[in-house]
């Protein structure tokens, strides 16, 4: 049921599709519009003037512009999880069923109680909050700030997960063009005809830019016809890509541009399998900014009354959307361009109430037009607006010479001149330069490869736009001449700068943030004269419109009050994005479970079949434990797994270790330089534990490296450091030691690797390895490493190394056999009760054995801290050797690894507790270390742990406090040898 007819829709004309009527809702009321409308144009069509409330004073506001510079007409678009706060009605494409609501008002847009703020406006001046709310001190967080936070903000975010999808893509071109106005289209023609790869981005859904509203004659034909001919030619060029609904928002280094494509925002929701928006990274050799210019308001009392609108926006609404923002229009202008609105309005059959032109020298032609149409041309300034929520009723005019006049009108079009869109050209901290004839900033320098053309470059005439665009296109394609530029006349442009009409009443510079001319004067009085100070103190230009309509006027007023010129006053730094961009688009596909990639071990799906619980280790999913029916918690499962290994045999997927083939005649010499211990002396067929330092002397990584052939070592890293160690080794190889003949290849993914541990390991392996392989202690001693054949025909590598402290081997098979290997191990090991174990049991056994791991290798420990100082060779140079000798790194009071046991055997330990001497009260002076790793040891039937403790090794046997105020615990532990289990190593060697 449509409650409103389109009372303000013209009977004909416009680029709307009258055969496609659409219904939409605004603040609960249903309205009608057409395909091709924006929400703003459709609201105007229905005579809606009041669309929003301002940020601070909650003043009633109407639609000011017709584009992405809109400060006032912000709505919450859509509902539920798709609610989008602060959406500009001027850029929201109408679709059937669109729902929008006004925002930042309570209880309703018409009756907003927060408008009471206006009563306090004498106090709520710029920066008022810095001067008050300080007493009593506690009241800030308790009372003042929550109230301010509730009052501030604009629309409401949905507050629940965004249901839509986003993605990101790359595009590449020779010439990138921003804008499809006359300059942009001419540039596309010129560069496209040359064969260059061209991408043209247009933020609007319709192509043509200002031509759509302002028309004109190009190459002797009406603009609309020229546009369609041009688009047809561009469409015929396979090297030209036109992207509408796409805003170029930033320029980054190396000719990379950011663009946002609103793929499906014109629909109620994206079709299945499609995204809402797509972020483009466009790599372009050259770019042409033909993004046009933004008409600027004039600051005068009452300039924020609904019905006050930019003169060019009025033309857009009338010409493009066939709607009438007002029936009887007054204009307040200081330049020639404003007169176009007069012509447009008269052409549409609207009344002109008066033209207030600040210039003394209005042309005879205009005066004749006024006489013919019967409206006065007043040389003066608008000094006040009579009206309110329902719009403009009357305007007061201060005439040059001192007289006053009043004009009855229901709409006021304003034109203070045009500001070229200098954003993109300035994002590399470029400062635009002042151009006197148009009283505006124009691009000066630009990022490499970028030029501006047309209105964005300060060329306001249609002919000039076409010429500049075409020339820029030719230059960017780096070829000479491609036909002749399209031809059109250049309209006369004259302007008398006018920024601010002084007078009584609030005159807004920044509409959305309610920054008035007097706020700027106050800021100047208080010493905030630098434009950046001005911006920060008053919040000028920091609203969602990014100051597109307010910045230049603000600094012009600052210049006036501080007695400087505008160029002396300067601009603030321009910062991307050119329009606000949804955070979801920057994230694209990378959210939820797709935030980061997932790495799976070769036995992953088998483990999943067993019901394993997985843990995230970096990008890996690793089996943490394998629960069995009836087990009440993880501890029971882990305890069972540990006992099974210590008493029989178990296996664990350790494929996540980094694995690197180190090849070449100098491989041994190379490893000698990167490890603290020696590898060149390692016999073929043997493995050795190695420790790497950073150059600063701290431990970097550890792992076992085996020599498989004279010129081939197989190096393993920890799971966490696989990538960084590879990078480090390549640095050593390529940069530090290029004289060595050594080659590195990551083979992490080539090998499925399992640790098989426990006293029955040989029995299990005997089932699966061909009998020719001698697995006896003599035939395959501890730290042996060699290839063996498996029954059934594949080869495997066996390494007799042990992390668990048990008799153990690690076995590697090519990864595609990893799944088969675990299944075969289960089959072969059934008779021995073979038990798969996860990372928790692995961790328990390494703590029982006193092996250091991640928590101890924390980047701040030395080899000596870890009890591995003796490994450091004194006979060779290696990375980190020199710095490891610094005084603080060899100080006797360093925290070193020790074991800890609670004196109460039933007590649970926790990592992160601190170590405090027994006699001391906890405090910074007695904080002697902390617990790094703990576990319940099934073997010892109590909790045990490792800790880094000052002089720990000298204090074995001492009772200290484990102090854990975070968890409210404080208990006694005994410092002990970190090797809790089989300290002689008999089991792993047996």
């Amino acid at each position, binding site marked *: 049921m449509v409650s409103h007819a389109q009372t303000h829709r013209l009977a004909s004309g416009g680029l709307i599709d009258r055969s496609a009527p659409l219904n939409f809702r605004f603040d609960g009321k249903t309205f009608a519009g057409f395909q091709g409308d924006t929400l703003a144009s459709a609201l105007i069509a229905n005579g809606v003037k009041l669309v929003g409330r301002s940020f601070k004073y909650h003043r009633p506001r109407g639609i000011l512009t017709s584009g992405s510079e809109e400060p006032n007409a912000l709505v919450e678009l859509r509902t539920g999880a798709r609610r989008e706060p602060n959406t500009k009605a001027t850029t929201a494409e109408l679709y059937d069923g669109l729902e929008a609501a006004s925002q930042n008002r309570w209880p309703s847009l018409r009756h907003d109680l927060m408008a009471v703020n206006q009563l306090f406006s004498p106090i709520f001046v710029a920066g008022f909050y810095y001067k008050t709310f300080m007493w009593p001190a506690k009241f800030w967080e308790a009372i003042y700030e929550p109230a301010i*936070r509730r009052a501030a903000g604009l629309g409401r*975010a949905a507050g629940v997960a965004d249901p839509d999808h986003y993605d990101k893509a790359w595009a590449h071109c020779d010439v990138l063009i921003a804008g499809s106005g006359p300059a942009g289209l001419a540039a596309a023609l010129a560069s496209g005809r040359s064969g260059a790869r061209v991408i043209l981005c247009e933020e609007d859904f319709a192509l043509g830019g200002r031509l759509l509203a302002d028309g004109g004659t190009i190459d002797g034909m009406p603009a609309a016809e020229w546009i369609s001919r041009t688009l047809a030619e561009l469409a015929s060029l396979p090297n030209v890509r036109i992207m509408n609904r796409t805003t170029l928002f930033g320029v980054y280094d190396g000719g990379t541009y950011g663009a946002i494509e609103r793929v499906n925002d014109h629909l109620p929701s994206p079709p299945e399998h499609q995204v809402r928006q797509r972020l483009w990274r466009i790599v372009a050799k050259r770019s042409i900014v033909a993004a046009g210019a933004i008409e600027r308001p004039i600051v005068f009392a009452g300039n924020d009354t609904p019905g006050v609108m930019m003169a060019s926006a009025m033309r857009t609404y009338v010409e493009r959307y066939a709607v009438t923002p007002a029936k009887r229009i007054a204009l307040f202008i200081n330049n020639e361009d404003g007169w176009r609105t007069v012509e447009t309005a008269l052409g549409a059959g609207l009344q002109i109430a008066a033209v207030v032109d600040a210039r003394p020298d209005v042309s005879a032609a205009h005066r004749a037009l006024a006489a013919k149409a019967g409206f006065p041309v007043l040389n003066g300034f608008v000094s006040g607006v009579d009206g309110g929520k329902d719009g403009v009723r009357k305007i007061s005019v201060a005439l040059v010479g001192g007289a006053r006049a009043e004009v009855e009108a229901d709409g006021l079009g304003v034109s203070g001149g045009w500001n070229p869109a200098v954003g993109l050209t300035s994002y590399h*901290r470029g400062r635009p330069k002042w151009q006197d004839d148009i009283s505006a900033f124009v691009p000066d320098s630009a990022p490499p490869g970028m030029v501006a053309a047309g209105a964005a470059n300060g060329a306001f005439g249609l002919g000039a736009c076409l010429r500049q665009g075409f020339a820029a296109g030719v230059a960017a394609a780096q070829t000479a001449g491609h036909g002749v530029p399209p031809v059109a006349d250049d309209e006369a442009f004259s302007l008398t700068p006018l920024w601010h009409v002084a007078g009584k009443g609030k005159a807004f510079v920044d509409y959305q943030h309610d920054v008035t001319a007097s706020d700027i004067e106050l800021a100047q009085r208080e*010493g905030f004269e630098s434009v950046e100070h001005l911006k920060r103190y008053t919040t000028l230009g920091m609203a969602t419109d990014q100051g597109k309509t307010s910045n230049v006027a603000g600094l012009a007023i600052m210049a006036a009050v501080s007695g400087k010129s505008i160029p002396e006053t300067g601009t603030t730094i321009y910062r991307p994005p050119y329009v606000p961009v949804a*955070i979801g688009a920057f994230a694209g596909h990378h959210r939820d479970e797709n935030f980061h990639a997932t790495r799976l071990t070769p036995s992953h799906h088998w483990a999943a079949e067993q019901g394993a619980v997985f843990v995230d280790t970096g990008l890996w999913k690793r089996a943490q434990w394998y629960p069995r029916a009836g087990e009440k918690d993880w501890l029971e499962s882990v305890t069972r797994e540990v006992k099974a290994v210590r008493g029989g045999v178990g296996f664990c997927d350790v494929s996540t270790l980094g694995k690197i083939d180190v090849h070449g005649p100098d491989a041994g010499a190379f490893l000698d330089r990167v490890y603290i211990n020696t590898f060149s002396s390692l016999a073929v067929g043997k493995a050795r534990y190695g420790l790497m330092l*950073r150059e600063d002397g701290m431990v970097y990584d550890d792992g076992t490296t085996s020599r498989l052939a004279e010129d081939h070592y197989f190096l393993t890293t920890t799971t966490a450091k696989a990538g960084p160690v590879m990078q480090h080794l390549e640095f050593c190889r390529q940069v530090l030691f290029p004289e060595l003949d050594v080659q590195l290849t990551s083979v992490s993914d080539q090998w499925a690797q399992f640790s098989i541990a426990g006293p029955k390991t040989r029995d299990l392996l005997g089932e699966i390895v061909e009998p020719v392989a001698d697995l006896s202690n003599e035939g395959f001693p501890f730290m042996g490493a060699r290839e063996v054949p498996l029954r059934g025909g594949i080869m495997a590598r066996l390494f007799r190394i042990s992390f668990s402290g048990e008799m153990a081997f690690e076995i590697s098979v090519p990864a595609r056999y990893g799944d088969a290997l675990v299944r075969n191990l289960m089959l072969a090991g059934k008779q021995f009760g073979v038990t798969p174990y996860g990372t928790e049991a692995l961790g328990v056994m390494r703590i029982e054995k006193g092996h250091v791991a991640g928590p101890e290798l924390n980047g701040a420990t030395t080899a000596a801290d870890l009890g591995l100082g003796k490994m450091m060779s004194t006979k060779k140079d290696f990375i980190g050797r020199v710095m490891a000798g610094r005084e603080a790194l060899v100080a006797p009071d360093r925290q070193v690894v020790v074991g800890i046991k609670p004196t109460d055997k039933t007590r649970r330990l926790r990592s992160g507790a601190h170590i405090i001497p027994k006699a001391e009260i906890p405090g910074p002076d007695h904080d002697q270390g902390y617990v790094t790793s703990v576990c319940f040891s099934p073997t010892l039937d109590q909790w045990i742990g490792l800790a880094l403790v000052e002089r720990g090794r000298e204090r074995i046997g001492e009772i200290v406090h484990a102090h854990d105020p975070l968890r409210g615990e404080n208990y006694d532990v005994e410092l002990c040898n970190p090797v809790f289990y089989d300290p002689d190593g008999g089991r792993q060697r047996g």
Partner: protein
Amino acid sequence: MKYSIFSLARAAFSGHKNWQRTWRDASPKDHYDVVIIGGGGHGLATAWFLASEYGIRNVAVLEKGWIGSGNAGRNTTIIRSNYGLPGNTGFYELSMKLWERMEQDLNYNTMVSQRGVINLYHSDAQRDAYARRGNTMRINGIDAELLDLAAVKKMMPFLNFDNARFPVQGGLLQRRGGTARHDAVVWGYAHAASALGVDIIQNCEVTGFSRDANGKVTGVETSRGTIGAGKVGMAVAGSSSRVAAMAGLRLPIESHVLQAFVSEAIKPLIPNVMTFGAGHFYVSQSDKGGLVFGGDIDGYNSYAQRGNMPVMEDVCEGGMALMPMIGRVRLLRQWGGIMDMSMDGSPIIDKTPVDGLYLNAGWCYGGFKATPGSGLVFAHLLARNEPHKEAARFRLDRFRRGAMIDEKGVGAQPNLH
């Protein structure tokens, strides 16, 4: 004029015509007891503490642009003292205590908002690391709480608990942490220091040092002439190496770009300050309503004060992974500051090898939250010629001795801190 609701109301009656400049616009004198180079938060705080705490009022702060134009105006406004290593812990808590009384000290509302800072953890290993850090804090008398998953859910029900790649398991909370209005801190110190006689001289770029025959610094050469000084303090993070080079010094510092972002203003959505433990993302919501967020540095040396897209995307990916409710909230502005990244991730406050020249640098990610503490300890060093006890570990020679304060444990690679 003392700022209060009463002075504000009185001023309103006179149309706000009677407000004075927030700080005096001073011209350089020939000589000061102390010249501070750098009109950011640290430099101005140092001047204020010199004047208010150490009775040294013949002080100038020289700023090459407008005050607060460096990192003081380009950060994510977070204050906290949740550090884990000796040196940092005590210092940042000293700073936290000064934040808590700043408005009354300065008669300027800097909007210190102790809304809580929570570091989320996503694994047992992270939980243990936070437990270690939280216990350090508690042992040092700093508030800290270790929250489990249920407590995090209660406090922030809007996080992605259901289908996250790295599910949240809990968090380390410092309730006293929060935010402050960064620009107001600069203006507040300028206001208060100026009132005590400090000369704040803008648009005055230091171009060199004056030295006597023994090499002692006797003043600075500036774009507004030579200014004599008993002592010169540098507080120019972002430009430390460039200024130090004028005195022939090389520092253990690299300059890196750190980006930050703000969204459009929305009604209150996020109550506190959060850091995501499984990616590079931290966020708070300003009183005005914008989500203020950031992540890691871009990773390469830069003085360009602008960032590139990969980090921008990385940060937003972190944000969406943590709370997919912000998908339709729009990013409004992006900016980049020049960070002094030191070789261990911790600051340097010390005398330099050049007599009369004092250094305050290397703030890495900690500069804003350090502002009042840095001002106090640097003023102490300048006034007393010996380090404040809470800055005793921030010495320049710690790298040579191997006494690094390396919270992340990544060593002498600044872009990893």
